[in-house]
């Protein structure tokens, strides 16, 4: 009887020996990788990796070529004395040439392989991914460029909005016909410091055009839910304020103000069917954090006028943005999904929304409230 009771335990212990082991000293942990085209229809893949052999773990870079990404990894493997493992890859970068051809073939591996994580950030490089990732070697940033770029992205998106585009979201937006993805574009300056410089617009999986990084706020304000903790600057013409200002200030042209977005939320609805008209309401609660120029903020009329001017400026910017998007026929705002729900369709066909989108009308109603202006007026 006692034999039967202890029998399972030796079996368990012996069987555990069959499990493969991974020793961290023998692994090279990839933190970022980048995909570019090479000659002869090949892919060149750049890996940023850590090895733990030396006392101080140092990031290193290796490249490989192949017709598939895994093939390129196998090629790179011939140059590294460790096993490259992608289990903690936090950033995937694509060269802009690759993105222009369409990312579907090159993102397949990320969705197929269960070793990849779903919250890795997807980014584009202004030039090639290799060039940007290799900038680590002679740039002022310390440590691993993969983590560095990932931190830049995550710290800039407190509520998981743009510029952080996780893999699962990107994959879903490529496939869905009612919304197109956007990605941040990195480029390096003359000192080799990487920086987010623009926003890449995609039509399905193809990189079409880019917008200045300043428009990031416009996209973020359209995010679902409440948007918080954003700072942005704005430049207002001084002319409407003239009657409140002293004589000597009236020759100034602009006043520059920085705001903290305390709370922002939005709703989008279809208000009319023919022509298809969307009504987007955006509410912003702001706090002034910096003001360059004379402004008697104690006067409530000035604050009210300032709110009106900001609303006006945002409305113009949004209208311009929509115009650009309609010209390019890309819909990163997801109006297509709203249309699908309005039409009570379960799935939208590919051409259906592309035909409609350039002709839709989008009206913006922006409501700004300045809550406070710091500790001195």
């Amino acid at each position, binding site marked *: 009887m006692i034999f*039967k009771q202890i029998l399972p335990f030796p079996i368990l212990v012996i069987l555990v020996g069959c*499990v493969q082991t991974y020793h961290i000293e023998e692994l090279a942990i990839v933190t970022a990788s980048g995909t570019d085209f090479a000659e002869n229809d090949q892919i060149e893949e750049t890996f940023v990796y850590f090895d733990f052999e030396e006392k101080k773990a140092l990031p290193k870079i290796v490249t490989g070529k192949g017709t598939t990404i895994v093939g390129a990894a196998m090629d790179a493997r011939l140059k590294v004395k460790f096993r490259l493992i992608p289990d903690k890859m936090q950033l995937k970068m694509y060269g802009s040439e690759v993105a222009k051809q369409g990312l579907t073939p090159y993102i397949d591996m990320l969705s197929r392989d*269960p070793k990849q994580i779903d919250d890795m950030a997807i980014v584009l490089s202004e030039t090639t991914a290799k060039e940007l990732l290799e900038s680590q070697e002679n740039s002022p940033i310390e440590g691993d460029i993969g983590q560095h770029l990932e931190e830049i992205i995550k710290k800039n998106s407190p509520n998981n909005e743009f510029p952080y585009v996780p893999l*699962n979201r990107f994959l879903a937006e490529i*496939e*869905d016909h009612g919304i197109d993805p956007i990605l941040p574009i990195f480029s390096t300056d003359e000192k080799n410091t990487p920086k987010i410089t623009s926003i890449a617009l995609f039509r399905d999986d193809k990189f079409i055009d880019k917008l200045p990084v300043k428009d990031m706020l416009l996209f973020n304000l359209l995010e679902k839910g409440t948007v918080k903790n954003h700072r942005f600057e704005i430049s207002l013409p001084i002319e409407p304020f003239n009657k409140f200002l002293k004589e000597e200030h009236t020759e100034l042209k602009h006043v520059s103000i920085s705001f903290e977005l305390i709370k922002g939320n939005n709703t989008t609805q279809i208000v009319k069917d023919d022509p298809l008209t969307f009504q987007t309401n955006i509410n912003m609660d702001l706090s002034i954090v910096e003001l360059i120029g004379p402004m008697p903020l104690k006067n409530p009329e000035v604050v009210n006028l300032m709110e009106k001017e900001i609303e006006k400026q945002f409305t113009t910017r949004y209208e311009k943005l929509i115009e650009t998007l309609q010209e390019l026929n890309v819909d990163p705002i997801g109006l297509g999904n709203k249309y699908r729900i309005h039409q*009570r369709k379960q799935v939208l066909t590919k051409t259906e929304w592309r035909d409609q989108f350039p002709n839709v009308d989008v009206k913006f109603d922006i409501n700004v409230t300045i809550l406070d202006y710091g500790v001195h007026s």
Partner: protein
Amino acid sequence: MDINVQVKPSIQIRAFYLYFIITSTQFGVGILEAPAAIFPFAKQDVLISILIAYAYMMIVLFVMLLILKQYKNADIFGIQVDLFGKWIGKLIGIVWLAYFSISLVSILMRYIEIIMVFLYPALPPFVTTSLLMALTVYCILGGFRTIVGVCFLFFFLTQVVFILLYHPMMNLEFDRILPIFQASIPDLLKSARETTYSFLGLEVFFLVYPFVSNKQNLKKPAILALSYSAFVVLMTTIISIGYFSLHTIEGISYPVLTLFRGIAYPFIERLDYIIVVEWMMVILPNCIILYWSITYGLKRLFSIPQRKSLYIIAFVVIVVTSFYQSKQVIDKMIDIVSQIGFWLIFVYPFVLLPIVFIKKRYKKGRGTS
């Protein structure tokens, strides 16, 4: 064989534990792939399909109860012999045993496949099966009460993982879940039928009924168990639809495991690996119940002592699962299990019920004359 089962009070259980037995049998590998399996027909309306399946399950449960109530203390094997006679009754009993066996093997094979895809591609399949079988046999040797204890314990150990789904839930696109009430009724029913594999496990009710000491309190835990599993399938499906693209969700093999792929904490970077291993705790009670059903059935039908069949079947299962087959074969097998399961569990009780009533009336009539 006796139609009614004599259960010693020392191995009887309270009705309250029925909740854990039923949930443990329903949760398995099925739920991991449920959203992708259900989605294709009803699309966004799968929520309604799941509710239809849930309502139907409830009806089946009451039919089962009605059948069992006609006897003093019988299980399905006894009832069948009573209704159809010794030969046909035992033959249908064998069908049940075959269903339990193939279901057990399909669960093990699917789990082996998941381990291979997610963790150790080169791990020999017999390792996983042997580990599970050693624990299963050990547990069954402890008797029926130990089995119930394991179900009880592992329920609390495993259901915690669903709390972690708050993470994908935070970034859900509710746009994808709308619009509802668009699918046609045939599509809704087709999707409802696809839930079969994740809801199988109800049949254990037919077997453990004689073991329950306070039968008058039996309804509540059973209803709660079914509601809980329906709720979990519903939640994971909603989250999956909001998380994946409407066009790709059908192609994802294990949507629920993939949901965990995006969760990371500073102290633990890859949570999904832990979930895959943790799922062993879901599989284990599942295996134990099915395995117990097989040995118990053999004992009831052919008077083979459980102690003897226990080791032989474990050996057979390890050998069978060692020939690891491709995904297509496992998919096919699971398809067969859900086909048999559908007819056996969701249709067969409705056939049984009128026969039971006719037989009872016939007996009564003969008794008075």
